[in-house]
């Protein structure tokens, strides 16, 4: 009974808590945190249950809202892929929210009620985007999540509102372009349902409106996903936002957008059309390649940890989009696996930067030194794990997505992209080992010149709620790396038609 309702229950949970938090916030404000965590826990439980059902052999769930079958009504589609993504994003969000209690007190005091309510709305939007099977409904959820992320970014340093405003302008243009694309598709096909439309598109292929629609949609979603030339909003937004916001939006937001791109390119248009009629994959493949290199190079040039991570996100998104653009099984596996891996790695890294910012008040890499290792040993272990995974060292998770992407490029004989993957791994190594070297080797200012002994430093680790979430995610990186055969065998069942 509950199994078939899961597609609706996940967003409903977030919605319920989003409206309850401000209501209960009038009564006792400091409970907002616990309500938010409770909501995320329940939603994660539903997602886990749903994905468990999928693994143990249940069919794709098509949930017809209002009892109207598509194309008349709107449906939520809970297939393997959307179930997987939903599980990933909700789990990450749960950990980030648990982690956020002290950061909330420090970085946005007096605003927790609104903050957690908007965070719930953000997750509602993301879940809706992933689950929905209707193009216009996707736009609505896209806007919910976008609005929420503008606000969450706007809460932060002094410069945050301006970054958020720029994101708002660019993001709304992205949403509008997507909507215009949907309009063209609707004009030509007369339906809005993805499954329905996917069946019709092969009949009308070659139509200039359809090609334009694809271009507009890719551009619109590309803005949200920070595809290379459209990434301008991302670095400022991530680096000036409060730690929790960037930890929430960076691992989840761009991933969801990349997932939507995957849906549009591989499920709506389909591999056959993409391969034969429209050369869109070549273009986004090249853009992704440039983005990977550009993001990595820019990351090397940054001196602030969060800004560096932001540029690294630009580069990592490139991997996912490159996987989509390959349009072959290995590319697909690589893209989907990298959604999971990168979500884990980026969440871990941003949580670490949150820990540092809470304790040290800054995330300036040039000030990092050996004392950090002494003060925050476990935080630094988590950081090291995530960093090594980003570099792509086996058996951590990051290696395997690179491995499948590399296999994908080899299968297409695309040596250029293969070398891009390899070079960017090296660049990743440069900017992460730079930090690791500082943290583990550089003598701190407080070192006694003569004896070389660091004076009066004791362990000053963050509070358990923050430490455990960071550590568990770091452990997750290792676990996903070792267990990725199971995950991949699940991903294999999610292939779109024609792959």
């Amino acid at each position, binding site marked *: 009974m509950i199994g078939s309702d899961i597609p609706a229950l996940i967003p409903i949970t977030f919605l319920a808590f989003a409206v309850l938090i401000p209501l209960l916030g009038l009564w006792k404000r400091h409970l907002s945190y616990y309500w938010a965590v409770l909501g995320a826990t329940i939603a994660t439980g539903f997602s886990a249950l749903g994905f468990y059902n999928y693994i143990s052999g249940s069919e794709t769930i098509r949930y017809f809202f209002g009892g109207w079958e598509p194309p008349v009504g709107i449906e939520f589609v809970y297939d393997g892929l959307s179930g997987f993504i939903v599980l990933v994003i909700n789990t990450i969000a749960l950990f980030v929210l648990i982690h956020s209690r002290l950061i909330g007190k420090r970085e946005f005091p007096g605003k927790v009620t609104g903050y957690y309510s908007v965070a719930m709305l953000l997750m509602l939007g993301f879940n809706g985007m992933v689950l929905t099977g209707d193009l216009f409904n996707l736009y609505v959820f896209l806007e919910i999540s976008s609005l929420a992320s503008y*606000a969450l970014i706007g809460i932060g340093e002094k410069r945050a509102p301006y970054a958020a405003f720029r994101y708002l*302008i660019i993001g709304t243009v992205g949403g509008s372009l997507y909507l215009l694309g949907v309009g063209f598709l609707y004009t030509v096909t007369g339906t809005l349902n993805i499954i329905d439309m996917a069946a019709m598109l092969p009949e009308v292929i070659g139509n200039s409106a359809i090609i334009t629609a694809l271009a507009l949609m890719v551009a619109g979603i590309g803005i949200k996903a920070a595809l290379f030339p459209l990434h301008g909003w991302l670095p400022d937004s991530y680096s000036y936002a409060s730690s929790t916001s960037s930890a929430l939006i960076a691992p989840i937001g761009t991933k969801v957008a990349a997932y939507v791109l995957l849906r549009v390119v591989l499920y709506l248009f389909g591999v056959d059309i993409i391969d034969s009629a429209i050369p869109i994959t070549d273009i986004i493949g090249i853009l992704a390649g440039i983005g990977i290199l550009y993001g990595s190079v820019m990351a090397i040039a940054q001196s602030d940890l969060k800004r560096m991570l932001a540029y690294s996100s630009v580069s990592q998104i490139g991997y996912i989009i490159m996987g989509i653009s390959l349009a072959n099984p290995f590319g697909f596996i690589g893209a989907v696996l990298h959604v999971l891996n990168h979500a884990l790695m980026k969440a871990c890294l941003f949580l670490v930067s949150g820990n540092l910012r809470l304790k040290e008040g800054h995330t300036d890499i040039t000030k990092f030194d050996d004392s950090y290792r002494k003060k925050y040993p476990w935080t630094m272990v988590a950081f090291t794990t995530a960093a090594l995974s980003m570099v792509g060292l086996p058996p951590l998770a990051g290696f395997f997505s690179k491995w499948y992407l590399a296999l994908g490029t080899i299968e297409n004989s695309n040596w250029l992209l293969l070398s891009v993957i390899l070079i960017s791994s090296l660049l990743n190594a440069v900017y992460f080992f730079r930090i690791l070297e500082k943290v583990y080797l550089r003598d701190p200012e407080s070192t006694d010149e003569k004896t070389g002994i660091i004076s009066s430093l004791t362990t000053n680790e963050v509070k358990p709620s923050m430490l455990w979430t960071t550590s568990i995610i770091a452990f997750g990186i290792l676990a996903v790396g070792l267990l990725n055969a199971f995950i991949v065998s699940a991903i294999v069942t999610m292939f779109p038609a024609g792959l």
Partner: protein
Amino acid sequence: MVDFVLGHYAYWFTIILLAIGLYGMLIKDNLVKKTIGLSIFQTGVILFFVSIASKWGATVPVKSDEFPVTEVANYMNPLPHTLMLTAIVVGVATLGVAFALLITIYNRYETLNEQELLEKIQ
């Protein structure tokens, strides 16, 4: 050719609106003007949807006894109208958020001109 131009006449206006909106967002320095450009851009999209809903010789999609509903050509397509109700609300919400952000920006920097803002941020 004439058919082509006349057949798409509403569409040309859409394009003009979209271009104006884009111009406002890209070229104008004042953040409020950028917001206005954004609004025009969204309106262009809305206009596009509304224009495709029309049918020659059809009436508004409210059932009336003069026109039988079995004959679809009697009524305009209600779907784009519905969608645009939603899109309008989204636009309003976006504007609200944009102005809230502008207020916070103004409180912090006391200017809404992008050039001055960038100088002050440096």
